[in-house]
């Protein structure tokens, strides 16, 4: 389990809602991302065609996952890439450490990798005396401030430029205080350029791993990813096992979907495709390339036909940007590395429902995420599934922590609800009683939460059933 502190979601939410600067920063950035995505996917018919293709590509690839992983491993190995398998996070961290130690390396430069955040790799390496330096600008900023990312694509988006200026000024030696974005970038460029030059090992994530050719595909705008994967003598690539696609020709549509959804661009500055370490005669590039494939609960999710769709995710972050809940509480409130709608379905399945199941309640099921997901993950349906599992005592369920919320009060309440709604006379009588009580209903439980922020609705003196009868409407 990556996260050691128990999740106090209610407190996190409460704090986030009061942090007006945080919410302002986040909403402004999300509005920009939402607009950019809308503009880059301007043709609705074409967009739907692309999304359907994205969904089918992931669906097919996952349908053959074991075979594709085998093919990927074989191709990579034939090409000279060393493939390692990590079932758990401690194993994955150990693998990275072992590679570093085998080279006597103490300095690691990191391109952006959500899997490495999932692993809490930096903290682990630091305990073993290894400096792991983030080089993506957003990650660099939050690392200086000892924070975790607030968004999958733009990790420092919860900070405005004054806050970033201060972070730079306080933490980078000789950095002048400036709020000018170009100057801030120049400071980062200068600082990190030296680190690229001197680093022993570079680390990256993998956006897509192509089984057909054993190719690791990475996208980026800044150039730090290419630096990390080309300058040092050793390159370590981390990927979740669900990131494999079958063919090279799967890349153009998947990249169009990923990049358009993540940043609203047609293409990133760089699309980097790595198939082997340095070959004889070549003058640069790492002499060793390692691919670490992480499970951490994914193979268990795989086993369930409906829940498998969680693994379609290509980490574009657009569900976060469109989510009204994310827009009001930001990424940190979710307590785990993946926030927003994808976090609401992924974290409970990986961490267990007792730890993270509460996240599935933080959705109004508005469907904004589903409408834009580039691979058409039915997120609201999966949120409902998590809710079902939270109460379900079914012994055949494979979800860890299922039934943790089961309690006699809610069970009874819903049984009564079902009874009332299948016995129309009881229903009618019940409504009559409530209508007579009217505003005198005691404000407990759900009603208390309602009336704290709103006036309670009033029962009509006569129900629709009564009006219909009165008006002589047919009932057959």
């Amino acid at each position, binding site marked *: 389990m990556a996260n050691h502190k128990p999740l106090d979601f209610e407190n996190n939410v409460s704090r986030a809602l009061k942090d007006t600067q945080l919410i302002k920063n986040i909403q402004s950035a999300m509005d920009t991302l939402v607009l950019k995505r809308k503009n880059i996917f301007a043709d609705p018919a074409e967009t739907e065609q692309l999304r359907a293709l994205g969904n089918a590509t992931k669906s097919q690839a996952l349908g053959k996952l074991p075979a594709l992983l085998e093919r990927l491993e074989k191709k990579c190995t034939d090409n000279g890439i060393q493939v390692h398998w990590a079932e758990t996070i401690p194993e994955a961290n150990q693998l990275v450490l072992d590679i570093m130690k085998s080279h006597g390396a103490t300095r690691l430069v990191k391109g952006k990798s959500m899997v490495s955040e999932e692993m809490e790799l930096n903290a682990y390496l630091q305990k073993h005396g290894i400096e792991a330096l983030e080089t993506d600008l957003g990650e660099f900023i939050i690392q200086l401030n000892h924070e975790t990312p607030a968004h999958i694509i733009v990790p420092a988006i919860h900070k405005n430029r004054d806050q970033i200026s201060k972070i730079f000024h306080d933490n980078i030696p000789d950095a002048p205080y400036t709020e000018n974005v170009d100057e801030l970038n120049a400071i980062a460029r200068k600082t990190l350029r030296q680190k690229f030059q001197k680093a022993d090992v570079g680390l990256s994530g993998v956006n897509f791993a192509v089984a057909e050719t054993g190719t690791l595909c990475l996208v980026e705008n800044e150039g730090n990813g290419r630096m990390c994967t080309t300058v040092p003598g050793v390159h370590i690539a981390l990927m979740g096992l669900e990131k494999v696609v079958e063919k090279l020709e799967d890349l153009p549509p998947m990249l169009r979907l990923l990049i358009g959804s993540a940043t609203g661009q047609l293409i990133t500055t760089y699309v980097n495709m790595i198939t082997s370490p340095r070959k004889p005669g070549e003058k640069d590039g790492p002499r060793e390339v390692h691919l670490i494939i992480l499970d951490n609960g994914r193979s268990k999710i795989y086993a369930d036909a409906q829940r498998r769709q969680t693994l379609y995710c290509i980490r574009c972050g657009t569900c976060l940007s469109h989510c009204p809940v994310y827009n009001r509480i930001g990424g940190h409130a979710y307590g785990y590395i993946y926030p927003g709608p994808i976090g609401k379905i992924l974290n409970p399945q990986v961490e267990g429902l007792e730890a993270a199941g509460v996240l599935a309640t933080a959705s109004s099921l508005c469907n904004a995420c589903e409408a834009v997901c580039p691979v058409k993950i039915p997120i609201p349906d999966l949120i409902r599934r998590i809710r079902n599992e939270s109460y379900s005592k079914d012994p055949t369920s494979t979800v860890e922590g299922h039934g943790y919320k089961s309690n006699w009060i809610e069970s009874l309440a819903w*049984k009564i609800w079902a009874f009332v709604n299948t016995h129309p006379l009881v229903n009618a009588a019940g409504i009559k009683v409530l209508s007579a009580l009217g505003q005198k209903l005691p404000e407990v439980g759900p009603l208390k939460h309602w009336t704290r922020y709103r006036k309670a609705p009033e029962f009509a003196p006569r129900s629709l059933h009564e009006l219909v009868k009165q*008006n002589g409407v047919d009932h057959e």
Partner: protein
Amino acid sequence: MRTYPDNPQKAYYFGTCLVDMFYPGAGMAGIKLLQQNGVKVIFPSQQTCCGQPAYNSGFPDEARTVARKQMELFYKDYPIVVPSGSCAGMMRHHYPKLLANDPRIDQVIHFSERIFELSEFLVHALNIRLEDQGLPIKVAWHSSCHALREMGVTEDSKSLIRQLKNVELVELQRESDCCGFGGTFAVKQPAISAAMVKDKADDIGQTGAERLITGDCGCLMNISGAMQYANSSIKGQHLAEFIWERVNGQS
């Protein structure tokens, strides 16, 4: 593109539980609009609720029990008109999923295919023409998330309002934002829900509208409740009731 019945003579009406309890006037207005346009409306008297509350809260078995009971009541081959995008969406899109393993899945699908939200039925099946008899008024429109994204009827609803010549429809700044109701979400995550409904109420306030019109009673309850709590003078009203009043000069 959805196909609609051509000049339907008869239609079922599914009132919805919120309409039944809190907004029966809106329910009747919908029925009268259909009747006025030549439709014989049939209201199976044993209907109660579409089952969505249990379905969304993690109690699918109870939802199935209630869903099956509703379907039995609408067994003839008439269209089923629903004055709610949310309940219509539940019965049209989610019943086949909820009851995927039901031996009578064919009946489920046949039921779901006959579900129409009120606006889309008025516009596409009846080609309704509205004559506005009311005084000038400025209104804002809120679409429920399911009307917008599942049923796709928002433009139909707004086109009905636009037919009323003395009604000025003012657009919200953030029309497609969720109002924060989400059924049990409003009481399970009350603080987040409250933040969402406050933003929606503020957005409505800045339009200068006198009235907030919506096609869904969950949203109506939520937004009206919040506006009243904040002592706003803006009234919330269901689309069906608003239209009925306008064409009868009762606004």
